[in-house]
């Protein structure tokens, strides 16, 4: 009897499995069609559309003030930065100069949002690869930031604090104190994160050399944010196209050349330190002044095309507005960082195991509503 099946004339087919849309490691309703050979991945096909809400089309219906609150629902973990992107685009189109106070507050809250997003990512990524404790620790520290947001903006996640022309209302009197408390608290927590997870030998073995992305591929796939910087591609929008009060601070762009999952992880830990330093440089110097400039009740943009990009916690978010001079945009397009970062998943996961796919997907830090919109 011939026991060697591979050499026999039996017909063999690829094995398909569905990962998602309700899979805990996909962090949302992402469906991955996996073609596997044993446990080796031959192909990964992301299938989107499960949370499509046609936000871009809804923007064509809404006024420019109303668009802002829809962007909360895209990348909900960096909602303030999304709001800021739309407001900056509208303000640039109107050639409106916002007060210095607004710029400072926007940058501080933006950096707090980035830390909150990275905290959640750190917790969830630990959980993805089997370390449940990180989940609780990440959420514990994020809770302090959520309290700051709730006190100042009125909401914890979908803040809608920006309006074209400034901020909806002034910062809360406790804002500065709470932020300083948080910075002091969090400085003792990042070393704990390192001790608990980064140094762990199991974690190191799961992450090192997994999901390698070269610099050339990062550029050609259009990757941005920590994913691209983990491959050595310097692309921080805050550095190269500085906006709000970011030109008044000095910070280093976290950069690594390994391109594996561990590099992407370390970039985000490094970014938390940099965000803390940006907040520290700004928090004592918030200038006095108005929290908004008056705009018309009905904002009409001049005819033309306007583009503004910002750095969210996941990468480069671009807002493109095509205006015909009416009170609604003729066309509005978001360039979301998650979509480009997802497109390289097939490239980095092929040849690895299913467990490695989870690890590389966790370091891409995907937020599905951002990809689907």
């Amino acid at each position, binding site marked *: 009897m011939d026991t060697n099946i591979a050499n026999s004339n039996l017909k063999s087919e690829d094995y398909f499995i569905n990962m998602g849309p309700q899979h805990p490691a996909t962090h949302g309703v992402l469906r991955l069609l996996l073609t596997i050979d044993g446990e080796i991945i031959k192909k990964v096909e992301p299938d989107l559309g499960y949370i499509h809400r046609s936000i871009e089309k809804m923007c064509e219906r809404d006024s420019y003030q109303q668009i802002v609150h829809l962007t909360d629902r895209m990348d909900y973990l960096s909602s303030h930065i999304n709001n800021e992107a739309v407001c900056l685009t509208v303000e640039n189109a109107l050639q409106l100069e916002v007060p210095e106070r607004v710029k400072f507050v926007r940058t501080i809250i933006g950096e707090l949002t980035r830390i909150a997003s990275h905290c959640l990512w750190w917790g969830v990524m630990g959980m993805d690869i089997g370390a449940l404790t990180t989940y609780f620790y990440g959420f514990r520290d994020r809770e302090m930031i959520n309290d700051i947001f709730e006190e100042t903006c*009125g*909401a914890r996640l979908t803040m*809608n604090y920006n309006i074209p022309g400034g901020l909806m209302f002034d910062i*809360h009197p406790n804002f500065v104190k709470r932020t300083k408390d948080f910075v002091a608290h969090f400085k003792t927590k990042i070393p704990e994160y390192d001790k608990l997870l980064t140094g762990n030998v199991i974690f190191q073995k799961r992450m090192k050399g997994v999901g390698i992305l070269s610099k050339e591929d990062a550029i050609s796939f259009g990757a941005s944010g920590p994913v691209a910087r983990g491959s050595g591609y310097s692309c921080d929008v805050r550095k190269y196209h500085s906006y709000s009060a970011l030109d008044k601070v000095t910070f280093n762009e976290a950069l690594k050349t390994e391109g594996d999952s561990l590099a992407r992880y370390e970039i985000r830990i490094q970014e938390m330190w940099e965000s803390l330093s940006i907040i520290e440089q700004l928090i004592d110097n918030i200038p006095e002044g108005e929290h908004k400039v008056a705009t018309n009740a009905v904002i009409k943009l001049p005819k033309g095309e306007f583009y503004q990009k910002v750095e969210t916690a996941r990468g480069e978010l671009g807002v493109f507005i095509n205006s015909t001079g009416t009170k609604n945009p003729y066309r509005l397009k978001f360039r979301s960082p998650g979509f480009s970062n997802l497109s390289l998943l097939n490239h980095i996961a092929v040849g690895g195991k299913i467990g490695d796919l989870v690890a590389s997907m966790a370091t891409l830090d995907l937020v599905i509503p951002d990809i689907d919109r």
Partner: protein
Amino acid sequence: MSYFGDIYKGIKTLLAGMSVTGKVFLNNKNNTITQQYPDNRETLKMFDRFRGEVVMPHDENNEHSCTGCQKCEIACPNGSIEIIWDRQVDPETGKKKKMIDQHIYHLGMCTMCGLCIEACPTDAILWAQNYENSVYDRSALTKVLNQPGSKIMPGVED
């Protein structure tokens, strides 16, 4: 040798991680952020700016300050606010004036963006800090904000 080296390194990082969790375990007084909801309902107070639901405050004479200008209805992105109004004779001046009949608020459709409250010129509507909004039927989420028989405060103009 690297086999034993790996074991040593593994135990070392394991203990390093456990020292972190052990400290948190022993110091749990300082690290607790968990809310014992719903047991702490009496003491749980939301922040003043928290967006729970839109309300229309009335004074002791059952008077509100909504002029029926409909700015909130226009500002709302998803049609959560409907204002039914007509022109009634103002008893003081004897002239016909726009007055609200019903200020209807669909809490189930509201995204808590706060644009209506920004738009209101007379501060007739405000945020309430109520957060327990579950009901058995969604029709209970459609609310009429002005109380029955209420009228506009004298002297409020938009």
